[in-house]
């Protein structure tokens, strides 16, 4: 029984704390998550992609609640428990999707400051704890 990532290579608990692993174009500073081999910004004059970490702080731009069990390929632990999720605008210029990690669902609010965390998403067939990136109020 280990802790495994929902998908490998998307995030890490770095010495500085949890971060999303993406890339950024050195020419036009466009952020990419997941990593992109080339810059897709049509205004960019030269694609210069470098590895970049994103997070941990930002604001919740908008949100919703998943009130029914999501269809596959989503996975969740039984019994299903509703969760909030939304678009998070990170301070470093990345808009990213993610779940909001919060106990009291009535406290979720637009423009709420949040901070990235790595938390359990579900347990797989082998009993492993599968973790992903989420955002908690900061």
């Amino acid at each position: 029984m280990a802790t495994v990532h929902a998908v490998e290579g998307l995030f890490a608990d770095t010495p500085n704390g949890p971060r999303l692993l993406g890339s950024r174009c050195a020419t036009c500073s466009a952020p990419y998550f997941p990593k992109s081999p080339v810059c897709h910004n049509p205004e960019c004059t030269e694609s210069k992609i470098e590895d970049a970490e994103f997070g941990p702080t930002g604001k919740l731009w908008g949100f919703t609640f998943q009130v029914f069990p999501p269809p596959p390929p989503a996975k969740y632990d039984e019994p299903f428990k509703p969760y909030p999720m939304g678009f998070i605008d990170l301070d470093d210029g990345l808009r990213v999707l993610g779940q909001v990690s919060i106990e009291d669902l009535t406290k979720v609010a637009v423009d709420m400051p949040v901070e990235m965390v790595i938390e359990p998403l579900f347990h797989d067939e082998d009993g492993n704890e599968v973790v992903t990136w989420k955002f908690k109020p900061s």
Partner: protein
Amino acid sequence: MREVAAVGFGMHPWGKFEDKSVTELCRHAVEASLQDAGVQWRDVEAVAAASSRFSGGKGWGLNGNDVVEDMGSTGVPVYNLSAGCSAGANAFNIGYTLVASGAHDMVMVVGGEKMPKGFIQTSGVEEHTDPEFLRQRCIGMPGPAFWAVLCRRRMHEHGTTEEQMAKVAVKARKNGALNPNARYRKETNVEEVLKSALVVYPLHLFEICAVSDGAAAVVLCSAEKAKQLTTKPVWVGGSAVATARFDDGITRGIGGMVPPGITHHSEAKAAVAKAMSQAGVGPKDLSLVELQDNTVYYELAFPEEWGLCEPGQAEWLLEHDETTPTGKLPINPSGGFISFGEATTAQGLFQICELGWQLRGEAGARQVPNAKVGMSQTIGLGGNATAVVLKN
């Protein structure tokens, strides 16, 4: 570019039709459009069809070829267009271009779809490079959540209430009740809407379109042909296709840039602006708008994104009945997706049929008085969008 007229509109009603093939639905629509135009299948010089993922097309999206084989293989060129939910109007744009260019004098545009049950999955592939997979596996976020997030943001920015959103559905179903081609023909009320299942907060079941089966067809022709066929042709003022811009605020995968200001649905905005510009009309000239209301949210957001009203004014227009068929800015007099449900690739064409019938004054109890200019719009997977302006 030559003038192009729309002279035939045909539709198979939307609904669930277990016993009919998509070919039969299309045949119904195509035959109705031919009869409406007063022409024969043999007069059709080319076919532009919406390419379906779900039904027909020999598993290769060859839906126009299915129609041609069924109606009679005359040897005409066939164009099958894929553009997600924008496919119908994307095909319309090709039909328009084929006539406008002088390549053909009469073109059939057709879209038909039989939908599988349940949520529309976009690819189903369990692949770590597929953003769709990542969103669902890592975040547990199915497609409709996007609408909900945007909707909740709107509530924050404009104070939109859940009652107001429900009223959009009530208005839609009121129109649908008057439309023999609509699937849901029973009126509803705010209480019933808000009591329907919460699908994804803040959106309820009655505020999101269902999946339906349906087919629609439009006959386009040159001005010369049109004048032989009718004294009252409907003209294609504009037909535009656009895709989302890089700086669009709705990230297509699981991450993108924080956009510079509000840049949502950049593809729809661009298509609408271009179609209106082609037609030489402005927001004030629109007698009616058929917009893609997969959810009630769009009916509030789109008009202001396109400059048809001021930011935050959509709720006011709704509350003051100005978006009903007799209001200042009639939206979805057909009943919209909320009343029809979605037969993905056929949607753009049911809208265009509605424009045609409204402009001819043939829309019965849901008629927009004195309709002169109508606009329709779709938005689809892949960042595709279309807009069409028809006028008398």
